[in-house]
């Protein structure tokens, strides 16, 4: 564990000493909870319709596929007209696009980013690598099945998928959301222990709280 994460005594600029324990002080460790649907189906449908109309992508280019995000978000493909835009922080995003392979090192950051996103949230896997390891199937440093570590709502085939394929994916995702079937976040909460066990199996230096949001 890195030094700055250790429990220690710190002396402030005013000369006062105090104890810090970053992993406890900075994060809430409460486990994730399932998000129940609205009491009335018609209300839930309305919510889902609204959710489907604003897919806000977290601006985290985890791999190759991120390069097609720029054409998508610029005038030629103009994803904004479909209610899709990208946001710089997890707090503002509800869609995580895993743009291809994930190294174990990135997986760790991805998990943290994902957990910081607000419910309901969705994960889309881009390309072969998220499905079965892709061309890095024999690499020592990339995960092979994204769904072992995060709940994936949708996959888009390709290496890498083109902007058009992404747009097709967004349309499908909207459809899934409107049907109330984009239950990834709830799945994550429900099977939290299983996901954590998988994550910890490959992330050997686990130096963060199990859940932080």
């Amino acid at each position: 564990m890195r030094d700055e994460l250790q429990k220690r005594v710190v002396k402030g600029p005013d000369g006062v000493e105090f104890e810090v324990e970053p992993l406890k002080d900075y994060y809430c460790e409460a486990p994730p909870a399932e998000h129940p649907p609205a009491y009335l189906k018609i209300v839930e449908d309305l919510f889902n319709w609204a959710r489907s109309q604003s897919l806000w992508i977290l601006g985290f280019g985890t791999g190759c596929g991120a390069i097609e995000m720029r054409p998508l978000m610029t005038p030629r493909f103009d994803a904004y007209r479909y209610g899709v835009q990208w946001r710089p922080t997890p707090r503002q995003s509800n869609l995580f696009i895993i743009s291809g392979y994930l190294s174990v090192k990135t997986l760790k950051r991805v998990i943290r980013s994902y957990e910081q996103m607000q419910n309901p949230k969705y994960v889309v896997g881009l390309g072969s690598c998220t499905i079965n390891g892709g061309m890095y199937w024999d690499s020592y440093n990339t995960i092979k099945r994204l769904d072992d570590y995060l709940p994936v709502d949708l996959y888009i085939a390709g290496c890498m998928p083109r902007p058009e394929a992404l747009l097709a994916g967004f349309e499908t995702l909207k459809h899934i959301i409107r049907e109330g079937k984009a239950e990834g976040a709830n799945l994550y909460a429900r099977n939290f222990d299983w996901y954590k066990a998988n994550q910890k199996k490959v992330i050997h230096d686990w130096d963060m709280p199990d859940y932080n949001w």
Partner: protein
Amino acid sequence: MALYTPDRSQYPAALPDGSLEFDLASGKYLKLWQGPQHPGITGNMSLELTVCGDEIVHARTHVGYLHRGFEKLMERRTFIQCFPIVCRICVPEPDFNEYCYAQAVEELAGIEAPERARWIRTLILEMGRINSYMMYLGGQAGSLGQAVIGQWTTYGRDLMLDRFEELTGARIYHMFILPGGVRDGLPDGFETRMEETLREIERIMADVEDVMFHNAVFKTRTVGQGIIRPEWIEDYGVTGPNARAAGVVKDVRKDQPYLVYPELDFEPVSGTDSDVFTRADVRRRDVHVSIDLVRQILARMPKDGPLMAKVPNVLHWKIPKGETYVRGECSRGEYGYYLVTDGSGYPRRVNVRGPSYTHAMALLEKMIVGVNIADVAGLMVSLHTYPPEIER
């Protein structure tokens, strides 16, 4: 022009070796992580900044978020099987991987790509260079808050991707230059459509010049910023536009000409001030050089002739023991492949030398000290680095 003068009263003391002494527990310094999930970072990497007030007093680059172990994977792939994977090492300008790898294999196997294939390779590399620069220009402007440039250049780049698609059959990873030659010739009417694309890009570049380069804000934030000192050029192995902007007029295309560059007419672009603005300007002018080169190539390349050298059955292709280094001038500097063979059907060792390796690591860490936090992104982008080629 320095508008900002930091308060250095809290600044850490210098140790004999030149590094700074700072005590995080003192509360005077703050660790600030820029990346990997951060809008102000190029690609997937991160900067561990130690700041004092608004100023960076120490920085470390952290890479490895995109490490897939290409050099290891290639050791268990046959020579032809390596061909599709190498382009993944650098996403925005993948073709240099294909070229350098193919050239290295051809050299050690003792074969030579046919004339027409070499023209097409050159064409592809120059198309890729334009794309890479277009992407950079959008990023450079964007890092300083000017989002509109990226809207234009990304469009221009996309038009070029259409040309790539019709020529190579793919948008991003072209997998077109393979050991022995190239896959196919130019499609019918390619020249005409390429000319249209080039005109559109020239139009965009004119707007970029007006709006980005003749821009008081941009100048204020870039002129005199992020200077690469002359002695750093050798200390940190600086190459390409970064070096040329510092007056080191070295361009592999001229100095150790490869492919058909000896037959093409061009002059390397250079600058003298070595700051963020000059580097941006060198790249802007280089786009025009590349546009011109694409025109020259299309006008002069042979229309007929073989596209592949005679290669043995690729399934059993063994290459005699040997080693070589093949370099090319990519948009970011010297791109090179060090290939070692041992007589088997697999490379013994491949080492990919991407320019970002030094630019984004040692050089960036050195340059970033003393910079205002707000300028970090702009400075970093100005080195034009792509993380995947650092860690491979």
